[in-house]
């Protein structure tokens, strides 16, 4: 149950693009055609599904305060958490390189269709963001970390697929010249983000009071999203 909840939460409620703006650069740059968007989206799901669990293991057994206690008593006091950025990015860069080599070896046709995107993914903030959010939200088990990685990847995939489809159609619309291209894409993404905000009540059944508390307790200030929600709730109360 916990797994399913986290899965849907990471796809819809904490959608990487619409709630935390991760991976926006490639989201905007590679969303002109549906076919390329699908390729990049699939690669992101794949890399996230590998790197998030791997970084979870690193975090758990190497980086967290006290994580080195499996080495022996005298190592229990070590805190290597300041190294997490460099370890995470090294894992990601290595995995991307490895995936590239394996794919090239076993499926040249897939390699040719993904070719340029794979190295691009190493510097996609969605991938590092996935690992960093995994760390700051303190996801407890390896299973949940995998689910979180896959779910976030699927959320990102959905977002880029949707915007690519819209951008293919918007070519036939009469957009003001200065707003064409990038401008209108930003505004559409904003509107889609407003739509995705309505998924916020999905797992709580629309119960107003408890979820806000619960969310702030678990996520704390991991993203300013929850703070904002509180502000809105307060404003609504003020209005009443």
């Amino acid at each position, binding site marked *: 149950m916990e797994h399913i909840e986290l899965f849907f939460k990471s796809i819809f409620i904490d959608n990487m693009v619409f709630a935390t*703006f991760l991976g926006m650069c490639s989201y905007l740059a590679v969303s002109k055609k549906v076919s390329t968007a699908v390729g990049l989206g699939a690669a992101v799901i794949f890399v996230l599904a590998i790197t998030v669990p791997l970084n979870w293991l690193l975090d758990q057994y190497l980086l967290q305060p006290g994580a080195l206690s499996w080495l022996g008593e005298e190592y229990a006091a070590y805190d290597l958490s300041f190294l997490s950025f460099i370890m995470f990015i090294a894992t990601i860069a290595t995995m991307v390189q490895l995936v590239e080599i394996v794919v090239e070896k076993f499926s040249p046709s897939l390699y040719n269709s993904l070719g340029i995107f794979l190295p691009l993914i190493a510097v996609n903030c969605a991938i590092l963001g996935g690992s960093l959010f995994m760390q700051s939200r303190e996801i407890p088990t390896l299973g949940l970390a995998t689910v979180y990685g896959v779910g976030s990847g699927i959320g990102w995939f959905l977002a880029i697929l949707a915007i690519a489809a819209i951008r293919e159609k918007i070519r036939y619309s009469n957009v003001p010249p200065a707003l064409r291209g990038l401008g209108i894409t930003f505004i559409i993404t904003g509107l889609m983000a407003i739509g995705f905000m309505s998924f916020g009540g999905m797992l709580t059944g629309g119960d107003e009071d408890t979820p806000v508390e619960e969310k702030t307790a678990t996520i704390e200030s991991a993203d300013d999203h929850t703070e904002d929600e509180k502000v809105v709730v307060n*404003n609504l109360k003020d209005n009443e």
Partner: protein
Amino acid sequence: MGLLSKKDTKLITDPLADNNPITIQVLGICSALAITAELEASIVMSISVLFVLGVGNVVISLMRNIIPSKIRIIVQLIVVATLVIIVDLVLKAFAYELSKTLSVFVGLIITNCIIMGRFEAFALGNGPWRSFLDGIGNAAGYGVILIIVGFFRELLGSGTLLGIPMLGDPIEKTGLYAIGYENNGFMLLSPMALIVVGIIIWVQRSRNKALVED
């Protein structure tokens, strides 16, 4: 300017408007949107990027002849990661509350595409001094957009700037609130960041027709 030749000055001024990293090159957008609900966070983020990009560009430029091109991405990532760890630790030491607000987005400077983009496009082919200027210019162009977005979102969203009330007191109904103005809490939510940037792009391209895409 005696210190800077005309070409050098252009390195700094170009990214501020006509070649802005965010609105024209479409780089480094993630962090630009996520932390702009408050002006203070935007300013700190801009300064952090200014530091990382300025120093990183110089380091990469100094090493450009000894980095094998096959592993250059990993070398670049390690240089950025080191600089970002420094920024993160400094923020945690001197501005703990703020580092909580910025949360993972300080870490995400590592994957900020502006930084990798400038390393690839400029620092690998130019000397340290020009790379430094280029880094400063691009980081400033990024900062300008961040500060504009942060300014509007904080002013319209919570009626304050840097935490100081600007429009009167919403509870005691002074200033603008006396004539029925209300804070627009929606400005603080994430979608409005996208829409504000969209509007900035719209304004910029209406003023400079050469930038219009077809």
